[in-house]
C-alpha cells in the first residue's frame, strides 16, 4: 500500500460573527489573516486508508467531531466511506467532518459507548454555533492528599517556591491526565516519592549539599513536567480554551507525539530496568577464582561466555521506589537525559522519520543510565574506593568482579599513558584519584557507545555508523569534537572484531571508513563526515589507532560483561512480526496505513522504519501514531 497523506491546516479564528473554523492549504494562507486569537494545527487525510476525495469547504451546515486519543482504525472502517476522517497530532487525534446529521450522531453515540472523549462542533459556514462535549470522567482524590502532604514538608525558605511550583505542576498534570490519558497518571505520580525522599533530612549530607540536591532535582523536574503537561494536554477539552505554545500546533497540541515519546521511553526504561544489568555485573563477585583478564588471549573462549546472562537474580524488591523518567520535547535541550528526565528535539515531531531526527537516538541516552549504574559497581569514585582500588592493583583478584575492576583500572592507565605520553602511571592514590576523575566521562561514553551498538543496533555497523553520523550532522558547532566522535564510533564497531588480535583495529577502521564513505556519497552527512574520514588515514589515523588500542579493554568489558545474548533477546524481542524477511525486520506494517498499527517493541519499530534523510511530517505522523497506539490492546487504550 502506498503512503499518501495530505496535510492541511485547521484554523480557528475569531470573527465578528463568533468563532470560525476553516481548512486552509498552507501556513501562508493562515498567516495572511492572522489575528490575536488565531490558532492552527495540521491535520492529515489518510488517503491510502479511505476511498474518496476530501472537501475543504465548510460552507453551509457541518459537524466537526473530535475524538481521541484513540487509534483511527475503527473510525476509518466505520465512517471512512461516509465522512472525511482527518488525523491530527493532538490528543483529539481523529476529526470526523460531515454534513450529515445522522453520521455525526452515530459518531457521538459510538464515542459515548466506548467511553471516549469527544467534542462535536456544529457549524454554519464555518461559524461554530454549538459545542457538545463528553462528560468529565470520574477522578480519584487520593493523589491530591499525597501531593499536598509533600508540599507541606519543611524546606529551606529559598527552595519553597520551587516546591510550590512542583506541587502545582504535578497536580495539573495528574488532573489533566486523569481526564485525557489516564494510563499516564501512575507514571506522573512516581515523581512524588522521589521528591519526598530527596527533601527528607539526610544526615550524611551537609545542609548546603542537600540544598543543592533539592534545587537540582526540583528545577530539572519542574522544567520537564511543565513541558510534558503543556505539550500533551493542550488541545484537550475544551479545545477552544487550551492553547498550545508550540505555535504551529496551537489549536490541537501535540498530545499524540508526547504519548508516543512517553510510551517509547517507558518501554525502554522497563526492558532495560528488568534486565538489572548492574546487579548482574555485581553478581560476578560470585565467580570466585583468580582470573587475570589482562593475560587472556584475544580469542580466549572466556571472552565469549555469556557471564551476566547466566546470573540468576533474586526476585526484585517490589517495594522499591519506581524511578520516574519524565519525557518531553524541547527545542533547546534536544536529545538529553538527566537522572529523572529525558528530552527529544521538538523538530522530531515533524521529522522523526529521518535519520537526522530519529527517536532511535534515545537509546543512547537511556544506555547512559544503565552504564552509570554499572560504573557504580566497577568505577572507584569515593576516596575509600580509590584506596581499595590502589590496593587491588597490587594483589591477586579473588573473583571475577575484582578482575573486571582491576582490568578497568589498567585500561584507564593505558589511556592515561597514551594521552600523556608516559612510561608508567599510578604511583600514588592521589594521582589515581585525579586520573579517575579525568577519565570518568570518556569511559562512560565508550561503554555507552558499545552498549548501545550491541543491544539496540544489533551490532549492525552500517546502520550504526550511518545513523549516529547522520544525527550528528544536524548539530551545530561540534566540529571540534569530531576526533573524539571518531574514536567512540571505532570503539563501538571494534566490539565486532575483538577476536582478531592485531587486526581488530584495522577491521574496525575499514568498516567505519566504508560506511562513512557511503554516507558521504549520498550527501547525507555534511562536513563532519569529511572531517571524520580524514582521521582514518595517514598520520591522523596513527594517533587514533593508538587511542583505540588503549581503549581495547573498555570495549572488552562492555562486550563481555555488560552485553548478554540472553538479555539482548529479551530487550529487543518483538512478537508482532510475521515473517523472517530482512525488510523492516519482519514487520508487516505499511507506511501510511493507519488501519494496522500493532507493535510490541517500539524501539525495534523505530529502527526498522527510520529511513533516508528526507524529513516528512506525514511519515513522522504515522510513526508517532504507531508509537502511541501500537500496543492498542484494550487495557492500553487511553480511555
Amino acid at each position, binding site marked *: 500500500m502506498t503512503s499518501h497523506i495530505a496535510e492541511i491546516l485547521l484554523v480557528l479564528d475569531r470573527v465578528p460573527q463568533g468563532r470560525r473554523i476553516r481548512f486552509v492549504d498552507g501556513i501562508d494562507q493562515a498567516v495572511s489573516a492572522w489575528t490575536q486569537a488565531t490558532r492552527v494545527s495540521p491535520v492529515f487525510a489518510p488517503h491510502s486508508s479511505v476511498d474518496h476525495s476530501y472537501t475543504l469547504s465548510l460552507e453551509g451546515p457541518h459537524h466537526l467531531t473530535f475524538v481521541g486519543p484513540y487509534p483511527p482504525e475503527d473510525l476509518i472502517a466505520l465512517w*471512512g466511506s461516509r465522512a472525511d476522517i482527518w488525523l491530527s497530532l493532538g490528543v483529539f487525534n481523529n476529526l470526523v467532518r460531515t454534513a450529515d446529521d445522522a453520521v455525526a450522531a452515530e459518531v457521538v453515540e459510538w464515542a459515548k459507548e466506548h467511553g471516549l472523549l469527544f467534542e462535536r462542533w456544529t457549524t454554519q459556514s464555518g461559524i461554530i454555533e454549538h459545542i457538545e462535549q463528553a462528560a468529565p470522567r470520574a477522578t480519584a482524590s487520593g493523589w491530591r492528599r499525597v501531593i499536598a502532604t509533600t508540599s507541606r514538608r519543611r524546606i529551606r525558605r529559598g527552595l519553597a517556591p520551587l516546591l510550590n511550583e512542583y506541587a502545582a505542576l504535578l497536580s495539573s498534570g495528574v488532573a489533566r491526565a486523569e481526564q485525557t490519558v489516564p494510563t499516564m497518571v501512575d507514571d506522573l505520580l512516581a515523581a512524588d516519592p522521589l521528591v519526598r525522599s530527596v527533601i527528607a533530612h539526610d544526615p550524611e549530607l551537609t545542609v548546603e549539599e542537600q540544598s543543592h540536591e533539592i534545587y537540582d532535582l526540583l528545577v530539572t523536574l519542574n522544567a520537564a513536567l511543565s513541558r510534558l503537561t503543556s505539550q500533551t494536554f493542550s488541545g484537550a477539552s475544551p479545545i477552544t480554551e487550551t492553547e498550545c505554545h508550540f505555535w504551529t500546533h496551537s489549536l490541537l497540541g501535540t498530545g499524540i507525539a508526547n504519548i508516543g515519546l512517553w510510551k517509547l521511553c517507558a518501554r525502554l526504561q522497563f526492558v532495560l530496568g528488568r534486565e538489572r544489568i548492574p546487579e548482574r555485573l555485581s553478581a560476578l563477585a560470585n565467580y570466585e577464582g583468580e582470573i587475570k583478564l589482562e593475560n587472556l588471549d584475544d580469542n580466549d573462549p572466556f571472552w565469549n561466555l555469556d557471564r551476566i546472562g547466566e546470573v540468576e537474580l533474586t526476585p526484585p524488591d517490589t517495594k522499591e521506589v519506581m524511578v520516574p523518567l519524565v519525557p518531553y520535547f524541547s527545542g533547546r535541550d534536544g536529545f538529553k537525559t538527566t537522572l529523572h528526565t529525558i528530552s527529544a528535539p521538538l523538530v522530531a515531531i515533524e521529522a522523526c522519520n529521518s535519520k537526522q531526527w530519529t527517536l532511535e537516538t534515545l537509546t543512547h541516552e537511556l544506555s547512559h543510565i544503565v552504564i552509570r549504574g554499572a560504573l557504580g559497581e566497577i568505577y572507584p569514585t569515593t576516596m575509600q574506593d580509590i584506596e581499595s582500588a590502589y590496593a587491588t592493583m597490587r594483589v591477586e583478584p579473588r573473583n571475577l568482579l575484582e578482575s573486571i575492576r582491576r582490568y578497568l583500572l589498567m585500561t584507564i592507565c593505558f589511556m592515561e599513558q597514551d594521552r600523556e605520553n608516559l612510561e608508567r602511571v599510578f604511583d600514588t592514590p592521589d594521582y589515581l584519584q585525579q586520573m579517575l576523575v579525568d577519565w570518568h566521562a570518556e569511559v562512560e561514553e565508550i561503554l555507552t557507545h558499545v552498549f548501545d551498538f550491541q543491544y539496540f543496533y544489533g551490532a*549492525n555497523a552500517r546502520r550504526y555508523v550511518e545513523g549516529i553520523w547522520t544525527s550528528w550532522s544536524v548539530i551545530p558547532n561540534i566540529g571540534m569534537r569530531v576526533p573524539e566522535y571518531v574514536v567512540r564510533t571505532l570503539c563501538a564497531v571494534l566490539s565486532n572484531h575483538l577476536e582478531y588480535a592485531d587486526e581488530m583495529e584495522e577491521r574496525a577502521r575499514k568498516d567505519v571508513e566504508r560506511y562513512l564513505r557511503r554516507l558521504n556519497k549520498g550527501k547525507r552527512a555534511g562536513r563532519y563526515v569529511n572531517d571524520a574520514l580524514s582521521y582514518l588515514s595517514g598520520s591522523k589515523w596513527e594517533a587514533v589507532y593508538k587511542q583505540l588500542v588503549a581503549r581495547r579493554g573498555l570495549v572488552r568489558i562492555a562486550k563481555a560483561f555488560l552485553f548478554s545474548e540472553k538479555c539482548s533477546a529479551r*530487550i529487543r524481542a518483538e512478537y508482532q512480526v510475521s515473517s523472517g524477511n530482512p525488510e523492516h525486520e519482519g514487520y508487516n506494517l505499511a507506511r501510511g496505513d493507519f488501519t494496522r498499527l500493532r507493535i510490541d517493541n517500539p524501539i525495534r519499530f523505530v529502527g526498522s522504519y527510520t529511513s533516508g534523510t528526507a524529513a516528512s511530517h506525514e511519515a513522522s505522523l504515522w510513526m508517532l501514531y504507531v508509537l502511541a497506539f501500537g500496543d492498542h490492546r484494550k487495557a492500553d487504550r487511553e480511555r
Partner: protein
Amino acid sequence: MIYSGFVLRSRGVPLDRQTLTTVPGLSLEKAIAGTRWDRYRFGSLRPLRDEAQLETDGHHTYPLLARLSSDGGRLVVLGPDFNIVRSVIEGELRPFFRPRVARESIAVHRLVQHIIDEPGPFAISFVHARTAAFGESLKSVSFYGNDVSHANFFRANLELFACFAVGLRDSSHHAEILRLRQDGRISFIGTEKLRDVDRVLHFLHDRGFYE
C-alpha cells in the same frame, strides 16, 4: 488443495451466514456436514491470482471456505491462494468487510510457550522465529520435526526466539493440521481435517491466543 486465508474478528455487530450470502459476488454453495464450515464461490470481473485473463466472459470464479464462530464474533475466510482472499477482503468486497471485520492477531509465541509448559492435544510440527540475541550474525531460525517442543534444545533456548509462525499436529498422530502466523494468517491442506481445524480454532479461542 492448500487453503490459505485470515482469521477476522467482528468490529462489534456479530456476523451471520445470512448477511454473508447477501454480499455481491459471494454465493453459498453448501454447508460442510459436521463442521461450522461453508463452501462459497466468489465471482470477480478481474483475475485475483495474477493468472492470465482466459475466461471469455471476463468472469473469474474462486472457491472459498468460510467459518463463522457460534457467537458471530469471528470469521475465518480461506481460498486456494492467500492473495485471493486478501483481494476479496481488502479489495473487491472492502465496502462490505471493512466496517464489519478486522484482521485478528494470533499470539504465536505465547502458544508455543503454552504447548511447552502444558503439553496437551497438539504438538508442534514446525516453528519460524526471529532472534534478537545475536545481532546481524543470526536473525531468523526454523525448526522442523514431529514434536519440536519436546526437544530439549528448543525448550532450553526458547527465550532467545520470538516465534511468529507455527505448525500444529495432533499429539497422537503425525499429520499436520494447520499452520498459523502472528498476523492472523492460517493455512491447511484439503478439507479432510476440518474437524481437527475446528478443534485448533476452539483451542485458540478458549485459551486466549487471539490478541
